[in-house]
């Protein structure tokens, strides 16, 4: 918890009401985002995302750890995995199938918070998107004669990798409501003054892939709908920004 | 005093407009739409204001059919059982608030300086209290302490007079 004086609290709230936040941003402006990919050589894919002072790392690999609190993981799952039948999921799960009904890849996505200055969910979402773009899964060739009951033999190639199509991976936009207004990319200070926050994950088509609300205060249904449309608008810019950052990071990685 | 006792309301039900009614116990005014809502389940009662009051709006109250157990707060007279006595304070379990018994015990502390009004630094806690004593006390403060005790009970009046019998007297063989 941050120890803020009454004056500081007033300052934050007042700034937001006047569309001039304490770090000079407007309500719907993100902090500068930087992306690095391929930072963990052992993982199939990894990325580091910085958003202001918030820094997170995401990695995609075969085994999982438990660095994130359950609540964050659940929120991420909700935003990325889609419905029970798989509709609306971030990645096309059928691309993970090696043999229909028999073998498939299990992807473990780990998120690690390095330093936290608010808006963790958005940063993690971005990091995961970057990490997935960076992920190559080895091509698996099914050895012949694998019919019948026995476990089919699978040959895993060391050289050939399949890249994911990450264009469908949504970004997460969290709108934090402070006073009567809501802001994107809140800092920890601003988050301490929130009455409620809505995290919305939006894909490139502008479809909502998940939504979760934090904070206790009730919201009028019309405000939520309004927030959804704002999130859609903001997400377009964010996706473009992220894509260019990711592309730049990938290029950097290949160069080095 | 006027009563329309038979109307039962539940939390969130609108009782009237804040321009016509004042919110009493079990009711609140919503800042958004200036309506008076009920916050408890119970009977709606409308009390007319005393004739000389400046605010002539009647007060609406919801008297709970089933209130939660009493909670000690500053100003409450409580009956407590002393659990342990230390040099500078004694801890006690609050058993009753006023004449009502609490559902689950609350713990409190009696500080040395609060035992009597005069010569407060000469109070010997061990002479004043024994574990198991039942004392009557006034809650002076609700505050957070490291040990997690949450209110501070103050013993009123003179020690010897107010001292109630130890409970284990009738249990000992």
């Amino acid at each position, binding site marked *: 918890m941050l120890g803020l004086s009454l004056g500081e609290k007033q300052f934050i709230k007042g700034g937001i009401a006047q569309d001039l936040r304490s770090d000079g941003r407007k309500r719907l402006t993100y902090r500068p985002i930087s992306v690095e990919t391929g930072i963990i050589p052992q993982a199939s894919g990894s990325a580091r995302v910085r958003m202001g002072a918030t820094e997170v790392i995401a990695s995609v690999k075969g085994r999982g750890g438990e660095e994130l609190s359950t609540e964050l993981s659940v929120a991420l799952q909700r935003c990325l995995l889609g419905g029970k039948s798989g509709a609306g999921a971030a990645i096309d799960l059928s691309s993970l199938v090696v043999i229909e009904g028999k073998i498939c890849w299990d992807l473990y996505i780990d998120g690690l918070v390095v330093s936290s200055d608010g808006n963790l969910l958005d940063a993690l979402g971005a990091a995961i998107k970057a990490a997935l773009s960076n992920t190559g899964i080895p091509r698996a060739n099914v050895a012949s004669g694998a019919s019948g009951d026995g476990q089919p033999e699978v040959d895993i190639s060391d050289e050939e990798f399949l890249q994911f199509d990450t264009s469908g991976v949504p970004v997460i936009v969290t709108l934090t409501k402070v006073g009567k207004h809501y802001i994107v990319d809140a800092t920890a200070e601003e988050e301490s003054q929130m009455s409620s926050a809505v995290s919305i994950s939006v894909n490139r088509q502008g479809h909502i892939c998940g939504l979760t609300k934090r904070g206790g205060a009730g919201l009028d249904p019309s405000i939520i709908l309004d927030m959804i449309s704002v999130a859609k608008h903001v997400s377009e810019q964010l996706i473009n920004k992220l894509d260019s950052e990711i592309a730049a990071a990938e290029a950097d990685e290949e160069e080095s | 005093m006027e009563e329309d006792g038979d109307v039962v309301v539940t939390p969130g039900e609108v009782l009237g407009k804040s321009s016509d009614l004042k919110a009493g116990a079990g009711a609140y005014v919503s800042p958004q739409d200036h309506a008076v809502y009920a916050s408890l389940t119970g009977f709606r009662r409308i009390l007319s204001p005393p004739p000389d009051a400046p605010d002539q709006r009647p007060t609406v109250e919801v008297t709970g059919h089933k209130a939660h157990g009493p909670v000690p707060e500053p100003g409450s007279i409580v009956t407590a059982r002393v659990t342990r006595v230390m040099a500078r304070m004694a801890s006690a379990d609050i058993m009753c608030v006023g004449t009502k*018994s609490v559902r689950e015990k609350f713990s409190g502390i009696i500080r040395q300086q609060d035992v009597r009004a005069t010569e407060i630094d000469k109070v010997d806690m061990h002479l004043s209290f024994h574990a198991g004593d039942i004392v009557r006390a006034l809650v002076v403060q609700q505050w957070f302490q490291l040990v997690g005790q949450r209110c501070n009970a103050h013993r009123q009046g003179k020690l010897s007079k107010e001292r*109630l019998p130890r409970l284990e007297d009738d249990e000992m063989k």
Partner: protein
Amino acid sequence: MGHSNASGDLSSEMEVDAFRRLFPLRFYEHHLAESIRPDGRALGKARDTTIELGAVASADGSALAKIGLTTMLAAIKMEVMTPSKESPDEGCIAIDFHMPPICSPLVRPGRPAEAEPVVSKQLADTILRHVKHFYGHSLLLDYFFKVLYSGMIDLKDLSLVSGKAAWMVYLDIYCLDADGSLFDAALLSAIAAFSHLQIPVVSMNDDGKLIVVSEENGEKDIVNKEKRKLSLNRIPFSLTCVLHKNYILADPTAEEETIFETLVTVVLDTFDQLVYLYKPGGLVLAFTSSVQDCIALTRQRLKELQKILDESVSGMEVD
């Protein structure tokens, strides 16, 4: 005595429930002297008891038992296991007693109640009634053991395919409201759940696994056509009493259990065998006469409970 006078004075000025809270023993002794308990019961009388069978639709057998306010929900789920080599014709019964945080202010999430493992063990002892593993003896002794001292349920009834498959019976009992005499209510709900139990009809599929089939479909390979109900012999019923001075209070509430520390639990079965006599310490010594009194009260109670159980079972059959 000056002291008692002082508290006598105090009692006149405080509300009854405050007095009850501060001087519980004195409060109760006032009542006991007049042979009545604060809830209006006679000393040897148990609280109203009800049984509702089939409370849980997703279970194979279930029952809700209430003794006064103490409420227990028992449900049985049947699963299939491979029997052990030593007893290829026997199934298994696992009994678990749970006190979820909803049942009492004393239970908090993540901190299981002290009584949980103890009552689980007691229930397993009374229901399964196996003393120790029985091996290295002649068939004759086995026979004796079976006729006389076997538990309420013959584990052999749980066999499906000898050496291959048998029923694993999971009996879970949840305390929904704790107000004393937990063991009595838990045992009653367990017994009632067993009398409600309908064993599902199973047949062997191609993988050698047993799956539930519906009887009407006329499937040919039904493994357990006959064994749809467990035969319950020697049903145990219990009564807990509290001893205080010369008083015996049957079926104590939670308040009574905390005030009087001496508890005696007696379990008798329908053949008047003593299945369990449990007196864990306490201030009062139990002499032969009081033990006999407790057993006599339990005999009476057994008749009551048996009637309640029979009524609820026949009520089910009418439906």
